[in-house]
């Protein structure tokens, strides 16, 4: 059972400088050839200040910082039984190359559920609000981690 006393707990901030090359790598791996992500001129023509980060870019700071792994260990979740159940983003502003974004992971909820087959699972929701170098909120990420029993 995940440690319910840790609901509301915040973890060390993730600080991440957004690089143009990382955006290119990510859309390259996805196979997304939308030119706005790799061509600044086209992005500007389409109404952006620069090439914007693609919709799932915020997985990059989380994974490279090891922040989700830190939370999983701290919450005493059995890593080998973890599934990524859900992922959700709210977007407030574009994220551009050169931005330095800071996100504070927070344990939003921990709930126990029983599946139709009678199996119990812990549902742990981690929320991360990201702000840019000007202190403006740019996006919120919500991750649901499922620990199977």
């Amino acid at each position, binding site marked *: 059972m995940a440690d319910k006393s840790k609901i509301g707990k915040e973890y060390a901030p993730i600080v991440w400088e957004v690089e143009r090359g990382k955006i290119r790598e990510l859309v390259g791996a996805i196979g997304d050839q939308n030119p706005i992500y790799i061509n600044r001129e086209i992005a500007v023509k389409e109404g952006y200040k620069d090439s914007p980060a*693609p919709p799932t870019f915020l997985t990059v700071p989380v994974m490279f910082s090891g922040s989700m792994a830190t939370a999983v260990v701290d919450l005493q979740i059995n890593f080998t039984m973890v599934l990524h159940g859900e992922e959700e983003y709210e977007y407030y502003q574009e994220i551009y190359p050169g931005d330095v974004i800071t996100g504070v992971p927070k344990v939003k909820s921990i709930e126990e559920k029983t599946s139709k087959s009678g199996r119990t699972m812990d549902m742990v929701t981690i929320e991360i609000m990201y702000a840019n170098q000007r202190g403006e909120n740019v996006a919120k990420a919500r991750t649901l981690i499922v620990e199977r029993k």
Partner: protein
Amino acid sequence: MELYFEDIQVGQEMPQLVKGPFDKLQHVMYAGASGDFNPLHTDDDFAKAVGMQGGVITHGMLVMGTVGQAITAWVPKKYLKKFGVRFSGMTKPGNTITITGKVIDKQASGGLITCEIVAQDETGDVRLTGRFEAVLPSKN
């Protein structure tokens, strides 16, 4: 071509996107790009040892990434306000997924549209469901 709120009708379908087949090289590329180095996605021996009989499985976030591609090929990224998915099945190398979506709601005040999305493999099995919200400009 600009997309306007008035161009969208409830029930309208998002242009379909077919992705794949996924392969192990793409998993390696995605691991390096995203920072998700869980060997479950790149090392068949490891994957088998933790119970994946067929070997590695595709990163869920890679599949979500392809759904993001489908959405922003239709609705410009700058209009996307919310995007969430529920992973309901594992995708594996060799799978081809088809991403479809449908407009389920329109709110004239503010230009908000809500769409449901689903990604299915070549046998029709659902691998992911989700929804997104976008705020579109008005012609007026």
